[in-house]
């Protein structure tokens, strides 16, 4: 197995080796200022800010903030994660295949001694555990409160020894309570709404902050029921994730996590969640009622890092941690999942300008109706809540190249025959969207909009009628690129190539 970093701090070392961080020693406030710096860095593709001195009213914990640490470069968002996992980073398709190969061989976690666990350097339980000791950032003007946005929630899983791991944000309410964004349709929210709450039982959970890149990546993936995300995190880093038991429940958490918040999601209790500047790039509203996390214990490292994501900046040209996870983890996972389900898919990748709402899939038309079947499969499984559109392009077109995709939509998608809707407003939608009115979103008890939406796919396959992308033979093009590089054109500017063949 390769020597690859496991903990969050080792990931920061990877960034620092690439000169990709800015350690800011001036005092910066958690109240909008740290987020403003991070947003500007995200939008300008600049270094990742590490705030060494954070103004805090309480200041009991000498915590440091890290703004969107997982954000990759705009042209190659997978690059830093790829370097951390020792995967190919120059070409997107090669990185995807590297992740897919790793995910084929899950590695079960190990359980370590809590006495040696960094995440137990400080242990506070009961009334001694206070969320307000930490400088949770207030991210956008108009947000409903301060947020933990880069958090992996560990929850029970009926058929997995290691629990279920998924990403959910938490809005901090007071020392012992936060509201969790739980949207029905996803596995952990379903377990809460349709099992624990119906039984009037609290669901034990642990909210981990700074659990490291492998855990954060797999928390973004759609892992089949019966398997555990943490085993796939082990696969990604080619070594087991070391876990330790929680203090107040039976769950296990990553030993290297910066902060672990143990607690229970209470049945039939709700607190406001939102408004929030969400991944759509807009503030969504109105406030929603979301389940309550009641804190039982907080354990953490000394001087912990609190990584956070400035949501809403992973749209357009910008990247943030969420959009990077989609491109670098969600995409390979989806590709693998679709192949495993029997679909002839080359690559499935999120459209880089939306983070989640639209995806591009490179595939050939295996048989009449195959695109419909493929879209139908995704819309009824992992793509149900967040994805509204799929764009299908030729199997050899590189979906990581937005120029290639835009050209395919503009030239090959016939409005009369190639745009397909799955009925009109029959499908579920997260209430975070901005195209429904507040009345249409309503206040559904399980976190989906009251009004349904539509889903659509676009057949932008060329059927053999694709315009030329380059001239000259391969040797001539290589020589041309050498000459241009000598004249000052960056070699990375030639990536991603239009076709995957050129990229591999």
């Amino acid at each position, binding site marked *: 197995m390769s020597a690859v970093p496991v903990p969050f701090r080792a990931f920061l070392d990877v960034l620092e080796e690439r000169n990709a961080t800015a350690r800011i020693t001036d005092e910066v406030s958690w109240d909008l200022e740290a*987020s*403003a710096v991070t947003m500007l860095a995200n939008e300008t593709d600049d270094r990742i800010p590490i705030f060494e001195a954070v103004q805090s009213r309480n200041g009991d914990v000498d915590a440091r903030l890290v703004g969107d640490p997982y954000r990759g470069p705009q042209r190659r968002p997978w690059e830093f994660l790829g370097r951390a996992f020792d995967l190919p980073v120059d070409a997107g398709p090669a990185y995807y295949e590297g992740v897919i190969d790793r995910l084929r061989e899950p590695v079960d976690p190990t359980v370590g001694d809590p006495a040696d666990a960094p995440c137990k350097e400080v242990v506070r339980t009961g009334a001694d555990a206070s969320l307000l000791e930490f400088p949770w950032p207030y991210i956008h003007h108009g947000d409903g409160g301060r947020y933990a946005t880069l958090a992996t929630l560990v929850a029970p899983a009926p058929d997995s020894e290691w629990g279920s791991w998924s990403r959910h944000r938490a809005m901090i309410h007071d020392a012992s309570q936060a509201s969790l964004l739980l949207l029905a349709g996803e596995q952990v929210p379903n377990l809460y709404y349709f099992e624990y709450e119906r039984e009037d039982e609290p669901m034990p959970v642990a909210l981990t902050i700074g659990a490291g890149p492998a855990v954060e990546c797999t928390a973004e993936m759609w892992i089949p029921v019966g398997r555990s995300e943490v085993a796939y995190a082990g696969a990604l880093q080619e070594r087991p994730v070391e876990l330790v038991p929680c203090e107040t429940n039976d769950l296990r958490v990553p030993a290297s996590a910066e902060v672990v918040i143990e607690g229970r999601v209470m049945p039939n209790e709700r607190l406001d969640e939102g408004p929030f500047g969400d991944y759509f790039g807009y503030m969504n509203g109105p406030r929603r009622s979301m389940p309550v996390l009641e804190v039982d214990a907080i354990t953490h490292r000394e001087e912990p890092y609190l990584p956070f994501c400035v949501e809403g900046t992973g749209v357009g040209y910008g990247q943030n941690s969420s959009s990077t996870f989609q491109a670098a983890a969600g995409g390979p996972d989806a590709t693998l999942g679709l192949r495993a389900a029997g679909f002839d898919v080359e690559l499935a990748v999120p459209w880089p300008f939306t983070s989640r709402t639209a995806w591009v899939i490179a595939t050939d038309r295996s048989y009449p109706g195959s695109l419909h079947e493929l879209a139908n499969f995704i819309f009824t499984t992992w793509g149900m809540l967040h994805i509204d559109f799929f764009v299908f392009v030729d199997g050899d077109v590189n979906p990581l190249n937005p120029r290639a995709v835009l050209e395919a939509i503009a030239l090959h998608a016939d409005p009369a025959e190639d745009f397909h809707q799955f009925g009109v407003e029959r499908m579920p939608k997260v209430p975070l969207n901005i195209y429904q009115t507040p009345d249409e979103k309503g206040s559904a008890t399980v976190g989906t909009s009251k009004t349904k939406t539509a889903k659509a796919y676009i057949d932008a396959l060329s059927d053999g009628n694709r315009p030329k992308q380059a001239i000259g033979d391969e040797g001539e093009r290589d020589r041309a690129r050498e000459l241009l590089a000598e004249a000052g054109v960056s070699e990375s500017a030639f990536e991603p190539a239009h076709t995957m063949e050129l990229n591999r």
Partner: protein
Amino acid sequence: MTAFRTHLEFLRKTDELCSLERPESPSPQVVAAEALRADGPAVRFRAAEKSHVGLASGVYGGVDQLTRQDRSPWTRLGIGLGVDRDPEYVDVLEAITDLGDRIDERDVTYVERAATATDRTVRELGLPTPPDEAWPHFTLGLLSVGSDDGTYWAPIHGTVLDGDTIRARVPAAIRERFERGESVTVALGVPAEALAATTLLTITDRLSTPIEDRRVGSTVPVIPTAGGLVPSSAEVVLETELATQQPDTRSEKPEFWERLVDGATVTLDVTGVFARDDAVVPFTPLDVPLADDLQLVALALAARLYDRVNGYWGVSPVDWLLLPAAGRLGICIVSTEVLYAGFEWQLANFLFSRSDCFDTVVLVDEETDPHDLGRVLGDLWVKAHPSRDWLFSEPDAPVARLPTYERDGTGARLYVDATWDPRWDEEYIAPRVSFLESYPPDIRTAVRESWTAFGFDSEPDDVGGA
């Protein structure tokens, strides 16, 4: 007016141009195509042989706007048109439109021809030969046809068959204006005004008016030649006669204007070659992404539509209109105020009725910046409701000209309404997440002032609202 060589100098000073020695191999067309693929700068090829002219590619195009850049597809042409060193998009569109406008009184400026007679043949100029082809090509040329009424300009490109023969493509509408044995002149390396106006007039079927009666005729200093007036500053001038033997078939790859109007193939006998000292001429590889001929048509067509759409309803609701070269003009994006419910339908269908190039129109709100195509390519999916705002016509419309799906007879049109519904209450409108809208002024100022001290390299002012 900016002479072509001055245009190149401006591009060099604004880091829009790199230079390299013209290689033996590969062909300059291959190098130019790769530079375009990389969103790279314009490329100046220094002549390797004394008799050869210098070459420049990417002078009018490049840059696809699919990553954040401080350059735009209209930057290089805008510099050539003298708009600004960092020209605003709409200013470039308006400059192009103005050049094509009719004027009431002729005001032609005659200036001595900069190019002088040379004993070199056209073959000896060393124009570039595309890969897998035997003869040198010229592109981005200007054909001048004189008449008693004045001079007509048209785009021309073609092949150098031997020392004194070229076979070229010209608009069919201009071909009708000269006969066998008559003189016409080809100019290479002309000012951007001349090329942009010629492209505009060609694709809008307005070649029947002499250029002296258009604004371009009073903007670009000219000189009479055996054919007609040509820009005085042209780098290379070829005086020719229409050959007695004419080809029966076309054999040239098309420049992009030929996708919008009919072209004709002509054989021309070169009777005189004139070149400036250290002449340099523009060229573009054909039929590759982001090529100059494509970008010239994209900007000229956008200029025409922008002008039409803002002159139609008595008000000017449209902020800008863009035909991304990356989409090879199969899609049109328009930033507009929605004047009233249903205006979006009216606007989209007005555009369909004024151009048969595209079958898809995307409407975005008026505060969207034309530099920020990334935002458009996000709003398209998140702001437009998948069923209510993706609106298709019945499939009984004419099939659009530029999309390549095969379809006979009729087809459908699509417009995507990614604007806010004017019927919505104000409180329904979701505020954007942005540096400008998500942070108060004091924080924005403090961050900007500390930016470099914090250890960042980028220019925060380049981000909208920063």
